[in-house]
């Protein structure tokens, strides 16, 4: 048969590609929680859960329908999935909001901060709220805009849920955490709440990073921008841009900084049974330079050595015997 070995090679190639690509993964399901105040909150969601709301106008004695300010819409599904799912709206907001139209002075009510509830509470000792507060105070955001920039800027009061600590899926954590930053850094409307400056274009500012899309899907902004702290899970000390990580090898090397940040709680042993360095990195992504296989390394050195040895012996014999 003409060219048949070539054809066999090509078939083999096709089969390998096919089997390699025909495996996919399966998702998991979340558990359901039943909130205690669904009924009370329903009163607020009646208006704040929709794009439009209705009320009875006593002056004109008519039912009217109006548009809800999009920034005042609270997604009920997200709310009940959040950390503070089992709250009543009026735990954080004044009881007077039950009346409509809301009293104009209510907008001036002081909102509770995280530390008002979580400060000094042993239940949350693990989270080190005080230390986070301290780091936040020293971060660029707080440094420059201490009063306007509160924890709520990043932790949406109606949807924030912890993910880095609980999620099995690192990719989801990365998306979730990056969206927090991008909610301002990619959205001029929210950015302007804080600053009148022009919002720097994130994609352009990170031009120097090749495979940008891949990187942003596989590392969080804080990996490069926040100073890691051993006692807290998510570093909050966002540093000035001059101090951001720019050296590729900080991640792309065996002592990758990711082991101390993104993969902090997954990082267990240095080398696992299969002989991979940084196994926790490995489960989810392949970071050139950071995960190498110990045994493959040894084998490859051995194979090179053996090949060279055979070549040397052969060459030696040729010289000796042939003359």
């Amino acid at each position, binding site marked *: 048969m003409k060219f048949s070995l070539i054809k066999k090679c090509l078939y083999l190639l096709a089969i390998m590609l096919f089997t390699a690509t025909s495996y996919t993964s399966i998702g998991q399901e979340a558990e359901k929680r039943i909130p205690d105040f669904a009924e009370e909150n329903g009163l607020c969601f009646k208006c704040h859960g929709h794009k439009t709301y209705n009320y009875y106008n006593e002056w004109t004695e008519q039912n009217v329908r109006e548009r809800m300010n999009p920034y005042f819409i609270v997604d009920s599904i997200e709310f009940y999935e959040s950390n503070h799912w089992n709250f009543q709206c009026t735990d954080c907001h004044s009881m007077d909001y039950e009346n409509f139209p809301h009293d104009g002075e209510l907008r001036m009510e002081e909102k509770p901060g995280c530390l008002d509830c979580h400060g000094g509470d042993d239940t949350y000792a693990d989270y080190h709220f005080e230390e986070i507060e301290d780091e936040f105070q020293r971060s660029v955001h707080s440094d420059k805009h201490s009063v306007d920039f509160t924890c709520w800027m990043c932790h949406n009061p109606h949807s924030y849920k912890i993910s880095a600590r609980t999620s099995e899926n690192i990719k989801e954590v990365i998306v979730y955490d990056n969206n927090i930053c991008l909610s301002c850094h990619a959205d001029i409307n929210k950015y302007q709440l804080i600053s009148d400056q022009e919002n720097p274009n994130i994609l352009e500012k990170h031009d120097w990073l090749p495979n940008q899309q891949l990187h942003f899907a596989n590392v969080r902004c804080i990996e490069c921008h926040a100073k890691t702290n051993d006692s807290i899970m998510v570093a909050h000390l966002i540093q000035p841009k001059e101090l951001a990580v720019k050296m590729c090898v*900080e991640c792309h090397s065996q002592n990758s900084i990711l082991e101390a940040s993104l993969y902090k709680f997954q990082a267990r042993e240095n080398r696992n049974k299969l002989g991979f360095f940084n196994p926790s990195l490995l489960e989810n992504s392949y970071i050139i330079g950071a995960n190498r296989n110990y045994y493959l390394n040894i084998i490859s050195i051995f194979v090179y050595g053996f090949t060279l040895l055979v070549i040397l012996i052969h060459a030696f014999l040729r010289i000796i015997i042939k003359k």
Partner: protein
Amino acid sequence: MSEKLYLYPVWVRLWHWSNAILFIVLIITGLSMQYSGTEMKFIRFDIAVAMHNIAGVLVTFLYAIYILGNTITVNSKNYRIREKGLIGRMIKQFRYYSYGIFINEKPPFPPKKNRKFNPMQLVSYVIVMYLFFPFLIITGFGLLYPETIFPTVFGISGIQFTAIFHSLLGFFLSVFMLIHIYMCTLGEKPSTHFKSMINGYH
């Protein structure tokens, strides 16, 4: 040999040497990325990545030329394999390399027109050029455009899977190159084959 055989047309020679140079660049930058570290700075990581990408794309163009050339020109005749008795012929060639060569036997399959390779050369070139090389290129492009890779393969990250394959293939090919270069010294004189690959004549 008095009669001069024209075995390596110009395009093969040009292909071959550009391919070899790019291949060496790929191996060096590839190793440098794989063993990157904060302390060892052989080639700066981002430069290594850029060089590796460029060389990879160029080598793919060359590969296309190689395939094209070996489809439409007469050089393809050299790549025909008669499967009947192939094993026997390979054993014969192997015996020559491991024994006969030392006692000044004549090579069993000296190059002639349209059969410039001996059976072992032929099989190894075909496997390397039609199995390993395309796979190396495909996995390489997968890594260059990771959005084309399936997110998970056999339960692990698709990129990871592809990257391991890519490095393994690169490793095999670098071993091939080592052996290949040595084998090329086994001509009438150690320099014979190299000269052929430069001036085209055997």
